[in-house]
């Protein structure tokens, strides 16, 4: 029984309202991110720069070449990680599963490190490597969990073990090829400083494609939530679908890792918050998670840039500060529900 879920199931109308509100929030966060920073840019100039006017001014350069790429990377990573988390939690019917807890992020990170060490100039290969690594991670964890017993906690423990092996792999790569990951600490913690549009685009397209594909499968996902056997007895090829959906989740997580490094917690907490707002039907949950993840990571990046300005702290640190207490609260609540 999945008693950890909040059983609030609002109507379609409420879902549309929530998504509109979330979209407005994303827009507001985006504008704030563009305006605020070490050098404040007035909203008017930001909008001018966005439509391409006033090229050559400092404001234009700041907005177009520094803040806009960073903002795009941030929204992309947040949305992709949260959507990936929503898919993973649903498909594995496990509240503690998320890209950062079951080895998906770490797998992607290892492949990125290897890719950068082997082919430092092939930037467009990075997202592909990340997605392959993410898929490798999730499949390894699934296989180990299945071999050792299918309990939900086994899966998470297997994830912890696999994650630490992958992390050791990343460290090993960096030890041998120190210049492989430029800004290594930023990558480990998760951060967006110095990101460029050229790095975002190859990650953006697969992420959007895989998000759309997973939305197209939302009815199948709903049936899968009934449990493997029940789903199969309803005529759904459950195992194939599960692997396909985990593949889509891996593409999303890989895209996020390739632009922002190993950001934790977004993929874990956002789907939980959204589930309590819009219920568990996959379509609404995916859309609201993507929006909520983008907004949350946007806010965290803004805080990271503003709190100790002119010093910046990577978004991953802010995210962990906010996410860790939530994770503990989740564990505690599960414990209480079980008693």
């Amino acid at each position, binding site marked *: 029984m999945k008693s950890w879920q909040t*059983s609030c199931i609002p109507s379609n109308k409420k879902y549309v309202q929530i998504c509109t509100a979330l979209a407005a929030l994303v827009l507001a966060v985006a504008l704030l991110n563009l305006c605020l920073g070490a050098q404040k840019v007035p909203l008017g100039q930001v909008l001018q720069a966005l439509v391409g006017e006033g090229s050559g001014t400092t404001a234009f350069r700041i907005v177009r070449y520094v803040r806009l790429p960073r903002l795009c990377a941030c929204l992309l990573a947040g949305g992709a990680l949260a959507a990936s988390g929503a898919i993973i939690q649903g498909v594995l019917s496990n509240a503690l599963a998320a890209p950062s807890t079951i080895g998906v992020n770490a797998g992607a990170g290892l492949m990125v490190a290897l890719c950068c060490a082997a082919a430092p100039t092939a930037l467009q290969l990075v997202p592909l490597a990340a997605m392959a690594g993410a898929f490798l991670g999730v499949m390894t964890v699934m296989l180990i969990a299945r071999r050792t017993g299918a309990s939900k906690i086994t899966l998470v423990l297997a994830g912890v073990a696999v994650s630490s092996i992958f992390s050791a792999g990343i460290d090993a790569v960096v030890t041998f090829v120190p210049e492989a990951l430029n800004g290594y600490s930023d990558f480990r913690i998760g951060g967006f400083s110095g990101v460029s549009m050229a790095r975002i685009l190859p990650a953006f397209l697969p992420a959007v494609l895989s998000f759309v594909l997973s939305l197209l499968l939302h009815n199948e996902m*709903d049936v899968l939530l009934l*449990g493997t*056997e*029940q789903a199969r007895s309803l005529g759904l090829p459950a195992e194939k679908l599960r692997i396909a959906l985990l593949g889509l989740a891996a593409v999303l997580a890989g895209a996020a890792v390739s632009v922002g490094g190993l950001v934790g917690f977004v993929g874990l907490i956002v789907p939980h918050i959204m589930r309590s707002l819009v219920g568990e039907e996959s379509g609404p949950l995916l859309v609201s998670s993507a929006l909520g993840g983008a907004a949350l990571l946007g806010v965290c990046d803004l805080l990271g840039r503003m709190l100790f300005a002119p010093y910046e702290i990577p978004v991953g640190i802010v995210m962990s500060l906010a996410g860790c207490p939530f994770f503990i609260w989740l564990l505690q609540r599960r414990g209480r529900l079980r008693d």
Partner: protein
Amino acid sequence: MIELKNLTVGYGGKTVLRDVSLAFPPGKVTVLLGPNGCGKSTLMKTALGLLPRQGGEILYDGVELDRLTTRQVACKAAYLAQSREIPSITVRRMVLHGRFPYLDYPRRYRAEDYAAAAKALEWAGAADLADRPVQELSGGQRQKVYLAMALAQDTETLFMDEPTTYLDVRHQLEVMAVSRRLADMGRAVVLVLHDLSLALREADRLAVLSDGVLRQVGTPEEVFGGGELDRVFGVAVRRVRTESGWLYYCRETQTSKETE
């Protein structure tokens, strides 16, 4: 009709079912009986194609199961699993999933599916629950919702694995009443039950399993007379005549010997 012929199932080097031949005729309530671990659930899952088999045939209206797609099977047989996930969705949405095998991509539920779901909810006595979240319901109510989902699937055969476990006595009787009505409409209803007296009173046919072998198939009268239940369960099954027919009960073997 679903027929099993010389079915042998095993996993992990252990044989769970050996040479079982059994048919589930329409219009009858067939109850599978047997001690824990005798292979009742395995039999059901194998008949539905959810578990692989080592030998034997499974025929759906004369067609071998392997030649049917998962969806075709789902249009012929519905399954009420023993352990269930309870997703946080509304009852109506949940029951609509019973229509899933009838939908082509993109699987938008049609007006007729909504109608079938509404009818199934009424049949299962859960029409008043339609807009409630499944997670808020009691065990008995959830059982009705799962039953409604299986009914919405509109199949000739309905398999239910321990549908009365964890239910209070009124809900147990309701499940049996729905089974009876479905059988009267020409469906084949197959149940796993642990309550011998309930099974003997309500079933049309009993199939007694132990250690993976089908010991006896017959009407309650035949199975009671054969004494197979006594041997398989290690109890003494007795009955008394009441105004509403025979009432069956079980006693420990030892005490019954003393009284004889």
